[in-house]
């Protein structure tokens, strides 16, 4: 049961990252490599501030702002200096590696004795739920449950805010920028500014995810962002095949569900003895398959139809 709760908690925390990737990759059609750097940036900033005994909520907020700045930098590199989308993300990601090392002062920063959002939630949980809670016949530690609820709450709040935002005038213009930039320019939308703001928003949420992850795991590590963009895309794809409707609300819900489900599958696979070293390889292979399958299936169907006609 503990494994399940842990997987769900990480799933919800990472679903914030997936929502960030939803903004950059789906709304703006932008494969944003900054993601890998800004997860770590969020974790590093939060961890460094927590070590300095800064209030956890403030630390998390500052981490989010740092991600915002990283995303805006990528956006400016792309729109202002006309650097290719992938390359501008890679440049910022690479630069962030050094920045993150400077922020943390070393490659791994433990938070075991610091007060974090997770430890605060655990304190509350102990008071509310007691040592253990019975859920459907399972006994669950009250502390674990409270952290799970916190991460669930974070995912829902960010999801709802994003849902509302994407239906405002500004949010609609951002979606149009990704969907048909020529059209929105002809209607007076500043597409460059939209891209900068959109990437800032995306990476802010991604850094928030990193900050929460560091506080839950109890450490920040300079390598923790590796492969996170692909993870986010995998979550997106699972969410889309789960719900499969092209409206914003469904996509946001699907993305959160997809991320949690993916994390659960990974936890089960690890439990069954999958080598943790293979995780990134399998994630990449999964995204590859999901990207080419629709095309292959369509081709097969055409062939079948031709065969039927012959």
């Amino acid at each position: 049961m503990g494994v399940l709760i842990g997987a769900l908690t990480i799933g919800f925390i990472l679903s914030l990252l997936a929502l960030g990737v939803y903004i950059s990759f789906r709304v703006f059609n932008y494969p944003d490599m900054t993601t890998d750097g800004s997860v770590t940036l969020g974790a590093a900033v939060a961890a460094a501030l927590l070590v300095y005994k800064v209030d956890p909520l403030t630390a998390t907020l500052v981490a989010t702002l740092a991600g915002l700045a990283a995303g805006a930098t990528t956006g400016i590199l792309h729109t202002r200096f006309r650097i290719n989308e992938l390359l501008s993300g890679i440049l910022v990601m690479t630069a962030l590696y050094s920045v993150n090392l400077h922020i943390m002062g070393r490659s791994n920063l433990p938070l075991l004795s610091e007060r974090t959002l997770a430890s605060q939630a655990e304190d509350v949980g102990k008071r509310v739920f007691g040592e253990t809670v019975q859920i459907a016949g399972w006994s669950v530690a009250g502390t674990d449950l409270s952290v799970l609820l916190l991460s669930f709450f974070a995912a829902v709040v960010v999801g709802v805010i994003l849902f509302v935002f994407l239906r405002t005038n500004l949010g609609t213009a951002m979606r149009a920028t990704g969907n048909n930039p020529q059209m929105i320019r002809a209607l007076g939308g500043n597409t460059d500014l939209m891209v900068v703001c959109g990437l800032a928003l995306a990476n802010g949420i991604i850094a928030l995810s990193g900050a929460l992850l560091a506080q839950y795991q109890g450490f920040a590590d300079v390598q923790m962002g590796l492969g996170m963009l692909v993870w986010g895309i995998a979550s997106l794809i699972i969410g889309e095949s789960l719900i499969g409707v092209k409206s914003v609300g469904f996509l946001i819900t699907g993305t959160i569900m997809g991320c949690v489900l993916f994390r659960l599958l990974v936890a089960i696979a690890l439990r069954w003895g999958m080598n943790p070293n293979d995780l990134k390889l399998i994630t990449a292979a999964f995204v590859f398959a999901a990207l080419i399958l629709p095309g292959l299936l369509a081709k097969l169907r055409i062939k079948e139809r031709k065969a039927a006609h012959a």
Partner: protein
Amino acid sequence: MLEVRNIYKTFNQDTPDEVKALQGVSFTIEDGSFVAVLGTNGSGKSTMLNAVAGAFQVDAGQILLDGHDITRLPEHQRARYVGRVFQNPFSGTAPDMSIAENLALASMRGQTRGLGWAVSPRMLDEFKTRIRQLNMGLEDRLSTMIGKLSGGQRQALTLLMASWLRPKLLLLDEHTAALDPKTAKKVIELTESIIQKDHLTTLMVTHSMQQAVNLGDRLIMMNKGQIIHDFRGEEKRRLRANDLLALFDEVRRKEQIDHTTAEMLSQAYV
């Protein structure tokens, strides 16, 4: 009033692909005038329209709208004054967004977009009333994704969107060229009714002589990046497609074919 003063544009300058697209184009369009611009492929007519829209910066010359110099204004800032319909019916609308959302975007053309709801129930009523004038039955499908509509429907919507907030200038870039004849006819009728109703100042690029003759109160003919004829008033009204055909023949004859090409052509075709 639109004033275009002696604009020049060369693409790929100093390369083998150099194209002198505009070579000193000047004209003035009075308020409420509907001007058709006619020319063959490569005559510079679309380039001229895009220069006015701000798709690129001109090399020299000035563009003034109602006396304001908009020559250096980026495309999205000009959009505040200018409504546009593109040749490609898929260019003017966002396919993965609903009809209502597309109209909402158009209803904010050139304005600051804040955090108000893009689509409110009050707006839906207005959307319905105005979309009904298209006579396409779209008023009951406001939540349909635009990508599910036909090219003609999308072009009609683009036209409605471009004129949603009365623009100072409406730019039509061969907006029926990619449609089938029946749909094209319908879109043209719609164009006329919208322009007449709102007295829109319009610049329409076309390569259809029939369209150029039937529509508008003025006709500008372009060739090789320059204006070669400008018909207005009674002269424009009397103009027939055959007259234009004769003019184009004349242009072709003037562009002397050199000896070797003529020989090659006669061997191939005679």
